[in-house]
């Protein structure tokens, strides 16, 4: 293909109107797979969480996991959808080794949830994203292409397959096309996925981690000239972060605008987002579009949610995250940016629980967003799994506030807590980290420092108060940092008769 000069994003969106649509897959956090009792834990040895059902062995029969149905309905309700009173699972037939059955159990023309919406806020304006459908399906196995140099299928001679992931419940959420948002399309796409992630996280049905693949996103983009019909869309896959969602839409708008400017037409195709360059490259051509031959899954009976059950689930939905954020932000008195960091770190609930057991908002936030967030980041775990509980953080902060620990000592205590040595007070006692608050002990340390540094002491007596810093340092050294520097300073000045 000839290289075409790319217009700027501004030029592109001044000539064309984008229409976007998003398909999001969410891996549910159930204990077991959707149609069998195999565990779903991440990172197990290959092919150790499989059974005759998820391996598609002859004669094996699936039974639906109630928790998967319930989670899907709760997602649908949280997205303001109608819940089907009766629907069926369907077989999506295709030949590919990631599904040993040669079909994926999914839903076709009878999704469990339909016709909802999500509101997002862009620059103070509300944009409503329509939800076309929310349906339940199963995840596929993981293939590893070997024999080639790149690890990708091109050049590979064979594929190695691990079916641990095959059969884990997956919820697909499809938006209606979103027109009329102009140059804000990339921002809207990102805001939608962010809001969707927050809503699903609040339901506690998935850990929704894009980097681990439990939230995956495909972005459809088309352009049309103002007043004309919608253009041909492309589908961009491999979009694995919120930032990438925004970049993928933006680069696709520029790419399509360049083609249209040159009088070419857009080919309906699947493209892959390139994390390094931020642009999209063609993937599988739709010319070989698969004929999935869907039909109702005969081995699974229809799903007919009891309306009373649905109403119970509706009544127990948690507060909508955007509403909760606004409320909490006001209570804590922090900026929108700080609030967003708290949400992104997965710290909102933890900080709330820490406050509930007695910490101040600032004190609770300081530990979760500081030391603990840093640790979680370094070790690659969720903040909630970092090894400290809200009660322990509240206790730590109260030890600081009562003067028993300095901030520095508290960090050391926290290390002990995270390492499983016990609650903060116990760690403090066991490691002998408590601040020296006994005035007698402190006074003798001060006297020792004065006696050991007669020259400095003389300077201070002569009025060079700044010289006292060296004496403070000496005392802090003998008390191994376990004294309050301000108290020590006051005591030194008092003993030298200059206070």
């Amino acid at each position, binding site marked *: 293909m000839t290289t075409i000069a790319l217009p700027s994003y501004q030029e592109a969106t001044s000539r064309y109107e984008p229409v976007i649509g998003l398909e999001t897959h969410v891996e549910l956090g*159930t*204990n*077991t797979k959707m149609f*069998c*009792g*195999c*565990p779903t834990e991440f990172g197990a*040895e*290959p*092919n*150790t969480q*499989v*059974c*005759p059902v998820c*391996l598609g*062995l002859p004669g094996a029969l699936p*039974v*639906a*996991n*109630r*928790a998967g*149905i319930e989670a899907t309905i709760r997602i649908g309700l949280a997205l303001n959808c109608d819940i089907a009173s*009766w629907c069926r699972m369907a077989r999506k*037939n*295709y*030949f*590919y*080794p990631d599904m*040993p059955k*040669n079909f994926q159990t999914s839903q076709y023309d009878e999704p469990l949830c339909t016709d909802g919406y999500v509101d997002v806020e862009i620059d103070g304006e509300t944009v409503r994203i329509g939800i076309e459908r929310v349906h339940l399906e199963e995840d*596929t196995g993981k293939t*590893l*292409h070997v*024999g080639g140099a790149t690890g*990708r*299928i*091109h050049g*590979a*001679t*064979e*594929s*190695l*397959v*691990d*079916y641990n992931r095959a059969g884990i419940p997956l919820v697909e959420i499809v938006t209606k096309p979103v027109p009329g948002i102009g140059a804000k399309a990339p921002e809207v796409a990102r805001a939608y996925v962010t809001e969707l992630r927050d809503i699903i996280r609040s339901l506690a049905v998935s850990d929704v981690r894009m980097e681990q693949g439990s939230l995956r996103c495909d972005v459809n983009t088309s352009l049309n000239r103002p007043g004309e019909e919608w253009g041909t869309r492309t589908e961009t896959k491999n979009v694995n972060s919120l930032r990438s969602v925004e970049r993928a839409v933006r680069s696709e708008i520029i790419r399509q605008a360049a083609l249209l400017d040159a009088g070419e037409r857009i080919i309906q195709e699947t493209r892959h987002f390139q994390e390094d360059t931020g642009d999209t490259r063609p*993937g*599988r051509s739709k010319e*070989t579009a*698969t*004929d999935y*031959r869907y039909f*109702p899954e*005969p081995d*699974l*009976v*229809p*799903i*007919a*949610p*009891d309306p009373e059950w649905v109403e119970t689930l509706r009544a127990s939905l948690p507060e909508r995250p955007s509403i909760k954020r606004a409320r909490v932000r006001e209570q804590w008195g922090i900026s929108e940016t700080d609030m967003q960091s708290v949400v992104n770190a997965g710290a909102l609930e933890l900080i709330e629980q820490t406050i509930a057991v007695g910490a101040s908002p600032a004190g609770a936030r300081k530990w979760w967003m500081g030391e603990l967030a840093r640790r979680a980041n370094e070790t690659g775990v969720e903040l909630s799994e970092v090894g400290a509980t809200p009660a322990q953080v509240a206790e730590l902060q109260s030890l600081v506030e009562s003067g028993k620990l300095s901030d520095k000592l508290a960090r050391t205590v926290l290390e002990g807590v995270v390492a499983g040595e016990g609650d903060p007070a116990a760690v403090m006692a066991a490691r002998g980290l408590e601040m020296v608050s006994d005035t007698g002990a402190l006074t003798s340390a001060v006297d020792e420092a004065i006696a050991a540094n007669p020259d400095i002491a003389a300077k201070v007596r002569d009025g060079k108060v700044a010289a006292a810093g060296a004496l403070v340092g000496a005392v802090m050294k003998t008390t191994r940092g376990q004294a309050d520097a301000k108290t020590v300073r006051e005591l030194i000045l008092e003993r030298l008769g200059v206070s």
Partner: protein
Amino acid sequence: MAAISREEVAHLARLSRLAVTEQELDQFAGQLDVILQSVARVGEVAADDIPPTSHSVPLTNVYRDDVVQPSLTQDEALSGAPDRTDDRFRVPRILDEEV
């Protein structure tokens, strides 16, 4: 007229990655045609008041609890594989299809 053409049978075989000879195409087209014609006859007698049946038993909402059951061991899981590595199924690459 035949209910299924030879071309349609070839298409289905391709989708299923089945190597079907020219002779088999004729044979299967004929057999499938008999099946489809028979099903079509049932369609003729099904009036509007008879909903299409997808399940032979009138059951809904059959679920299990979200409780872990023992899986197969890795060796058991891989025992039926035509080819394997230590811990994975080994299959030929599927040409130019990246799902």
